[in-house]
């Protein structure tokens, strides 16, 4: 299974954190520090795989954001790269040419999309179209409900 997914900028600012196992707050902070230090220190054309404690860390840089995914030892590293790529594609489809600012200002949506793609540390849906359709439907539901709720009651 996957243990955690972190997105951070080149300056080490955290943009998204998803934890798939319960971890105390203090330890989360330490892990984030370790990950950002390790990944940001890597040379540009190096291998995308690292070893950290008993986990494999798969990282990939997209524009100004680093995607860092920790998987257990028996998982397939190359597939993990594909998982990261799939998430980026989903974000891209949703926001239209996604950039870091989109994720900063709409972080809750980035989480909603992630929660339609991954669940409990495993892949939930393998089809891009299905995920996109579900997000759109949920958004629609939110809008109509909001509209409904904000209508003045007579």
């Amino acid at each position, binding site marked *: 299974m996957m243990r955690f997914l972190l997105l951070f900028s080149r300056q080490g600012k955290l943009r998204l954190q998803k934890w798939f196992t319960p971890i105390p707050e203090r330890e989360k902070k330490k892990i984030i520090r370790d990950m950002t230090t390790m990944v940001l220190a890597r040379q540009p054309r*190096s*291998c995308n795989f690292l070893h950290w404690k008993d986990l494999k860390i798969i990282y990939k840089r997209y524009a100004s954001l680093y995607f860092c995914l920790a998987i257990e030892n028996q998982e397939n*590293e*190359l597939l993990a790269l594909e998982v990261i790529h799939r998430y980026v594609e989903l974000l891209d489809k949703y926001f239209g040419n996604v950039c870091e600012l989109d994720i900063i200002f709409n972080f809750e949506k980035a989480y909603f999309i992630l929660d339609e793609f991954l669940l409990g540390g495993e892949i939930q849906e393998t089809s891009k179209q299905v995920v996109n359709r579900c997000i759109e439907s949920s958004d629609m539901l939110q809008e109509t409900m909001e509209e409904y*709720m904000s209508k003045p009651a007579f």
Partner: protein
Amino acid sequence: MSPSVPLQEMIRAIRSARTQCEERGVIQRECAAIRAQFRQADNGGRSHNLAKLLYVHMLGYPAHFGQMECVRMIASPRYSEKRVGYLGAMMLLDEKQDASLLITNSIKNDLSHSNQYVQSLALCTLACMGSAEMCRDLAPEIDRLLRASNSYIKKKAALCAVHIVRKVHELGELFAPAARSLLAEKNHGVLHGAVVLITELCERNPETLERFRKTVPDLVQIMKGLVISGYSPEHDVAGVSDPFLQVRILRLLRILGRNNEAASDAMNDLLAQVATNTDSTKTVGNAVLYETVLTVLDIKSESGLRVLAVNILGRFLLNNDRNIRYIAMTSLQRIVGTDHNAVQRHRGTIVDCLKDQDASVKRRALELSLALVSATNIRSMMKELLLFLSSCPLELRSQAASGIFNAAERYAPSQRWHIDTILHVLTTAGGDVRDETVPNLIQLITNTSELHCYTVHKLYRALLSDISQQSLVQVACWCIGEYGDLLLRGECQETEPVQVTEDDVLDALETVLQSHMSAPATRGFALTATMKLSTRITDNVDRIRSIVSIYGSCIDVELQQRAVEYNALFKKYDHMRAAVLERMPVIEKNSPGHTNGESTREAVKEVQPAKVKQAETLLPQQPANQVCDLLDLLGGSEEPLQSNPAVGSTVPVLPISTSSTAGGDLLDLLGGLEPTPLTPAPTVTVYEKSGVTLTLSREKQSDSGLTVTLTASNSTDSDISSFTLQAAVPKVNLKMRIRISYTSQGSAFQDTVQVDSFPEH
């Protein structure tokens, strides 16, 4: 979906803060406002406030006061509020918080909500942070959803079930039937979830694994559909149809086929098909191939398939993509033990990877190269490894050095090659080798008597060029001290002759002594070597005398003590000096598996002034009848007489510490210091007469033998010479008869002692 304006305004405000202090100020104000809003009644802006708080939390600021708000929001009937509430719960709450229990009821209700998106929120949160109690509580509900709902919910319920099984193992049984039936679904999401669930169940419970083996044909069928079927736009990734599902099925097949011939046979054809048909130009195809290779190598596959798998790994090694080279090497590392020959075929490529730029690839290549060293390729491999050592990154140096030493020890084709290799390593990476390298090398050098001349010349030259590598300097000093006479003689078969004068040698040693680069231990080596040379050179003994007396007032305590003792040796006991500083005997090393090419274990080279030899070399030299004599004395033994080697072997090493015999005199000079070290093992005194004491301690007991240590000491003021010891043991019954003879104060003594009981361990 319209963005949350209040949230975005706050984010903008925070980002425009120019200093950390300013940012903290903005956040404090915002948090105060949020707190106030939380206390107020429902005003339609609750979701915005919680979202703001979650943003602040992500920046690293405390947000625990939002936990109760999350609980309230989850219970709200509005979808927008539920959505943010559940997100907040996943971010701020975990199973250790008490507040998490409060949402159990909400989750339970939402699991049966009429709207699937609300159900989905509940399922997601449960799978993310469900505690064991919550899981136990809600498991039946999840099972219901696994059976009777739409695909959207089924796939989420499957992964929820996975989480539940991870938290509460016993509940696995509950989900097994539902999991089985889900394999018949067409929806990929559900299928994927089902495969993950079955994998989890099989990994946890061997009985469940047995039952699910029957699904192998179904899984094979599904895979075939994915691999052969035409283009499916919904699931296609760069020409591969649903690689995520393919990889999961391959993983499950691996678990089911492990250690089972029948299951492995059933999947053989499929694996061959996947291995040959999958397009390997993109990462995604290689991901599937990688998983296939792992599966083939782990199940009971037929040899043709295994060869195919290893060849795929070989192709990966040549791939331009560094990631693929890396995983090829990790996989090859795993099978180098079992499929050694197959991996050997790719040795060339692996060795080339030692020159890769990437540190992770280098590390893998090093480990794999070391595993591939064998007697046939040792020379060429060592060339590559030594080349690597000279340019490898710092963090790999000590691993490389120790790997090289191990390989050299196991497969050295000749002694000279072995010594050359070790010297090469010490010159390149002397600072990164382990401490025991120095005594190991010294032991190796003493054993190779025919190369003493060559070795000392080579080390002398190395010492002249560089004295910073401590291990090398220590060995060099030791050798020069031991074999300085060979160095001065000049001619040597193996290397070009070079004229070395006594002054040159002493200059070199003094440089080491005085250099600030030398560690204290190294200086000790140099001082002792200088002292030893006093018996091996002829003209410059006075120079040595002066060096030694200078260090008598050295600040370093160890050096000072040595210098003082050597001084004493010069002044009072000059007659003993030659004997004390004699050539060292062969150092015995108890390591099995020594396969040096042409070495033979050499017996003691030089004769000690007092004719003490270790018991096992002693016994064969005595005429056979004397030994038999001794055995006859052991009246109680009915066993037939042992042949000499057998007797020698049942009496393993009885080290008589040299200090107590030839040096026993020396120790007397130093005020009767007790030579016997403090032994933790229980000792018993077996003989004590006129100052000569013999103690016995029992040390190691293995299946084949017992190690007994006999220590002899002399507490009289006079010398003891011609000390001889013989011991005999019967085949059974732990007894020993010891006969000692020695000369003291002009008269000869002989005594026999019988030891019937040994001290308990």
